[in-house]
């Protein structure tokens, strides 16, 4: 049963769409924030066997509330086991056990390169962002990557100021012509970008992002206005399926639990 559309926010639409992309049984390396919300929604709805991994070393975790940081106690308490951070990156990520790397970003460009380092020049930045964290290797060592980010001209730029985390490189060819041993361990890269307006996928040939589905009620012009390059649309443009009442209910309940939990004691 679908939810009446007016009642669903664009942000919820994005989260549910992202959650649906995650198959049951998938091993997912979860970035903090939006990806964590979507991955846990997936686990609480259609993908109970999804395996969630956080860079803090928590393997196969089932948090009841969303973590504020990637290392909240909740993640460890509900995990199958918790390993050291070097082991997490060496054995579990680089070792090839991650199906989907699920990332957020501050900037993304037409070749799905991500910038979480800075706006402006590296030595004299206008805005200094947190940096790469786990993303550079999550993006290259996972079998595929989902990116989840709210869409605006500030976020969706033609060329990112800095490639923190590679999508397909400055010209779309960064994953071509690699050394065979590197190629064998590199994933396919970003396969979906999920925003609050639409879903984009890389063109199979030139790897430029193409809108393949619009969320219900969203127009092409809205997407064009929120994108910093001349965005392409797929020939057969789909409409994203409307969230079910259950999905929305589970998501809202998760967020409410989370908010109560993190309110905690303040100064």
């Amino acid at each position: 049963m679908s939810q009446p559309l007016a009642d669903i926010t664009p942000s919820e639409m994005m989260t549910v769409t992202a959650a649906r992309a995650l198959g049951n049984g998938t091993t997912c390396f979860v970035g903090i924030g939006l990806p964590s919300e979507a991955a846990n929604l997936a686990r609480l709805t259609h993908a109970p066997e999804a395996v969630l991994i956080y860079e803090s070393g928590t393997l196969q975790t089932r948090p009841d509330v969303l973590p504020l940081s990637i290392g909240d106690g909740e993640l460890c308490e509900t995990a199958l086991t918790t390993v050291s951070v070097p082991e997490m990156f060496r054995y579990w990520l680089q070792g090839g056990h991650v199906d989907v790397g699920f990332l957020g970003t501050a900037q993304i460009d037409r070749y799905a390169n991500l910038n979480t380092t800075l706006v402006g020049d590296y030595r004299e930045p206008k805005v200094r962002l947190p940096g790469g964290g786990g993303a550079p290797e999550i993006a290259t060592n996972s079998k595929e990557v989902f990116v989840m980010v709210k869409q605006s001209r500030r976020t969706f730029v033609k060329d990112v100021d800095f490639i923190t985390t590679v999508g397909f490189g400055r010209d779309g060819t960064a994953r071509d012509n690699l050394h065979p041993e590197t190629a064998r361990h590199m994933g396919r890269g970003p396969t979906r970008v999920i925003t609050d307006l639409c879903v984009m996928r890389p063109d199979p040939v030139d790897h430029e992002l193409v809108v393949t589905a619009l969320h219900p009620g969203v127009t092409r012009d809205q997407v064009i206005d929120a994108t910093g390059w001349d965005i392409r649309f797929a020939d057969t443009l789909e409409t994203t399926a409307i969230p079910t009442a259950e999905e929305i209910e589970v998501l809202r309940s998760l967020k409410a639990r989370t908010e109560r939990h993190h309110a905690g004691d303040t100064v």
Partner: protein
Amino acid sequence: MAEFLSLHDAVARFVENGATVAMEGFTHLIPFAAGHEIIRQQKRELTLIRMTPDLIYDQMIGMGCVKRLIFSWGGNPGVGSLHRLRDAVEHHHPVPLDIREHSHAAMACAYEAGAAGLPLAVLRGYVGSDLPKVNDQIKSITCPFTGEELAAIPSIRPDVAVIHAQKADRHGNVLIEGIIGVQKEAVLAATHSIVTVEEIVESLDTHPNACIIPGWAISAVVVAERGASPSYAHGYYPRDNGFYKTWDAIARNRESFAAWMNDHVMNARPEESTR
């Protein structure tokens, strides 16, 4: 063999001006009490290493202790920016901050390599990233068996590692449990190490493969109850997520930051300084 010292004495003895210091704790067990003591002792010109500079590094940077930061993710997790870090990078306030930036995978490998006594860490990393363009410490080696080019970065071998742990026994053997991060690696990679603990117990009383650092591999063990707060200690107290959110407003502004530090750190005794 670990000496049992007061927090004041451990910091005074092992953290020298100009030292390279790694204070670790991946969200969990962040050594706030020790960081506050370093601020109170007005250490200067430190090179700080940490995968996730957290509030504690924001405070040390804002108080002018730091000349260089080696890191891989510098934010207030789930909240936003570290404003003192940004002020130092964007406006060189209170002193210019040189940054040397890596990815988590690389830093984790570099700690591992440091603990393993190696000069370099090797990983399949930085492929396609601009980070090697702005960090000349990211180089490469070629595998003699496959010809594959792999990233190489220097191992982390700090002068001092500072971590917080749940407990130590009377021999200074330390138990770390829960999210163990890179703390063991940081201690083993460092020349000296300070471990603050919640308590000293008769026996660690744990399982055969527990993460224990033997006392003979540690320089100083210090009792610092709630020494990780507002971070947390699994089995002792939870993360004060509320404070992490509040910090955003405190640190956004130079004056409110200075006032808070004055009240809660500079004029606090070691045992009062954490919350």
